[in-house]
């Protein structure tokens, strides 16, 4: 390994450039592996993931390519019982392959820090703690320009219980089992759980937060794309965990105001609840009769989601 010929260096260089192109291409493909980018945070997360995919592809193909070459071309002959060369190590090489991953890791951590700081999903981070991360040690770190310095404009209370979502809007004071949000405005949710751990997860927004009983967690993000998306419970919450899903509707601020106004005129009704419905169904053919935690009564809200969106 110490005396590499020009030929070898050239070959390695060409292979590395080829790998780099494949890796960059994979990084671009990565964007298509996600649901639609429906929030400003999603744009940031997808960027970061694309970078990680490119880097990961390079490392993976580098290692696997080398192994494949060995397996194809460096097998012992059937009657060749001699050993390979007695090479115990190479200090230079070992320093290089310790240092490069170390630098890469700091780079990834710094970049991730920057993205997380911009997302500010738990509100702005307390920057007094910043000195504890590796991020500050790198010149890459500029004071992150917050993407969204606008104050949260829409404040909604989210109530999770076994196994229902319920949303409370302040102005006018209405309730729903389907989350409606105005587009392109900073949203602040106050997450409440009334029994066990739950998780607020909207894949199209790329954001998630566990909901802890006994705590209220303020959680922020900014939707940027109108449409109907899925909201799922992401922290295992017991028997009907998988059924605890509903829809998020992102609409223009005007449509959102219109929805609030109309809904305020609606009398509260009992919403459809999948868990409650299944539990009450007498003829469950696959039931074992194990005693389980009873689902809470279905929420009574001004705007119930249709049972179609909660199949």
């Amino acid at each position, binding site marked *: 390994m110490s005396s590499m010929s020009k030929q070898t260096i050239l070959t390695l260089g060409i292979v590395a450039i080829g790998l780099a192109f494949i890796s960059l291409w994979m990084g671009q493909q990565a964007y298509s*592996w*996600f649901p639609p980018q429906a929030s400003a945070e999603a744009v940031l*997360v997808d960027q*970061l*993931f694309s970078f*990680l*995919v490119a880097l*990961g592809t390079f*490392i*993976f193909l580098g*290692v*696997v390519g*080398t*192994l494949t070459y060995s397996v194809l071309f*460096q*097998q012992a002959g059937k009657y060749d019982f001699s*050993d*390979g*060369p*007695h*090479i*115990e*190590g*190479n200090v230079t090489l*070992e320093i290089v*392959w310790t240092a490069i991953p170390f630098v890469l*890791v700091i780079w*990834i*951590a710094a970049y991730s820090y920057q993205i*997380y700081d911009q997302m500010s*999903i*738990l509100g702005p*981070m*307390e920057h007094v*703690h910043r000195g504890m*991360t590796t*991020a500050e040690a790198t010149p890459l770190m500029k004071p992150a320009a917050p993407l969204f310095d606008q104050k949260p404009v829409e404040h909604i209370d989210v109530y999770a219980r076994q196994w229902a979502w319920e949303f409370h809007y302040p102005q006018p004071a209405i309730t729903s089992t389907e989350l409606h949000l105005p587009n392109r405005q900073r949203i602040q949710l106050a997450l409440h759980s009334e*029994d066990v*751990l739950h*998780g607020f997860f909207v*894949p199209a927004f790329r*954001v*998630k*937060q*566990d909901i*802890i*009983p*006994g705590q209220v967690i303020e959680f922020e993000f900014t939707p940027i794309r109108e449409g109907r998306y899925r909201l*799922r419970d*992401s922290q*295992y919450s*017991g*028997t*009907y965990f*998988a059924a605890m899903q509903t829809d998020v509707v992102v609409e223009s601020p005007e449509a959102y105001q219109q929805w609030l106004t109309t809904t305020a005129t609606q009398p509260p009704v009992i919403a459809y609840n999948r868990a409650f419905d*299944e539990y009450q169904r007498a003829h469950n053919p*696959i*039931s074992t009769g*194990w005693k*389980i935690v009873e689902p809470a009564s279905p929420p009574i809200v001004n705007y119930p989601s249709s049972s179609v969106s909660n199949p």
Partner: protein
Amino acid sequence: MTNLSVDAIAQVEQPLPGAPNNWKRFFSFSTDHKVIGIQYLVTSFFFFLVGGILAMIIRGELITPEADLLDRAVYNAMFTMHGTIMLFLWTFPSLVGLSNYLVPLMIGAKDMAFPRLNAAAFWMVPVFGVILMASFLVPGGPSQSGWWAYPPVSLQNPTGNLINGQVLWILAVAISGVSSIMGAVNFVTTIARMRAPGMTWFRMPVFVWTVFAAQIIQLFGLPALTAGAVMLLLDLTVGTSFFDPARGGDPVLFQHFFWFYSHPAVYVIILPIFGIFSEIFPVYARKPLFGYKVVAISSLIITGLSGIVWVHHMFASGTPGWMRMVFMATTMLISVPTGIKVFAWVATIWGGKLRLNTPMLFALGGLVMFVFAGVTGIMLASVPFDIHVNNTYFVVGHFHYVIYGAVVMGMYAALYHWFPKMTGRMYSEGLGKLHFVLTLIGTNLNFFPMHPLGLQGMPRRVASYDPEFAFWNVVASLGAFLLGMSTLPFILNMIGSWVQGEAAPKNPWRAIGLEWLVSSPPTVENFEELPIVVAEPYGYGKSDPLVANPDRLEVVHESH
């Protein structure tokens, strides 16, 4: 290091097991580390099959979007028991079994430091295995709160009974913990004190280093889990409120207790597999392990770092931003010593004279899948990305690439490699290669689809899912069934070869190592005269002897 107590222990504390060449010894309270090793391996493999059947039932449910095969409660019990059985009754005990068999032989000892403790630790495995299985029979069924048992779900006791699935689960985990601590004390003592003359630290095979590093983790980590489990048990049975928020407890505190151990636990699992890779690549590439000392020391660095990364399981939990950032950095650092090992294995193989026997195939397959899991692991360490995929199938895909791709494949590699030593018989290469091909295809078919599913936002632990996820779930389920089938040629090979395989010589692979200098299988005492080690462990490519007294290690008997 010469060690007076070696002789003393050999004389005083090592009762000779009876009926040394009789199959009945495997059902007795034998104190022979080789018998105990095989007892662990066979028992844990039985539970591997049980856990695998549960996995196939889970995949049967998930082959369609609706919850139509199992009651939701049963589904939840299935994944709880699958995780618990696979970790506490397969992965841990199988690795302890392999370590039990190999460590004394590799360091030139006649047995473990505490042979009776060793036997007691093993016999706790069937005990808590039975307790765990019995929980299927209690009213309300087994625990349905997952192997992580987060409160408050794990504290909800809908049956109201004192003896319920959750209580039995905690009891089983606690006994498993005691057994593991007993094992850890034994391994650490044995490696520190029982090495043969001349077997200095830097002459130990890397497998021994990794076992040492892994068992130190057990010693510092398990007390935290045990404390958490005891508090959970008290909350559940006598109404304390450590973790119950309804009565002022803190459910997030449990997560810290749990992951303070259960994250390092994955290094308890993967470190011996690193050891197996480090033993197998030199043998089948005919080259010394590249950078032996650095690889050995990296194991201890991993041990150290493993204690300060646990919060990466809680990036979406009730954790503040600064904590997420700190643990992101520590988590990513682990990739440095791990990377050193991967590169060292690649450099070991490079330019060698490869022989693609079954152990080598499994080790190579395991390495490639470990690298893939390492790449997704770094991604998961990155907080913003983890926020999206936390608790999705992406995580399930990642850790099954580690635990099946690397650990199970590595375990198979080890079982084939040391099968002739353990049984005195050769296995069938043809069946071995068939087993490898089925396992490789099955693993990727089963676990690769979980990555796109997670990226798309499919949560883990769900009994039903939106129809958009159907395609990849069908692929994963087919992979799971194939993986189930892949164990058949293995079982056939192991049983068939043990019964009527060709007799194995001392050293069928021309491998370097103390275990290959004695007969296959070794005698009860391993070494009649303790080996005097005079060389480093991987002398491939030069013909220096490993020990000064190769001809006096055993009594001359019907030699080959």
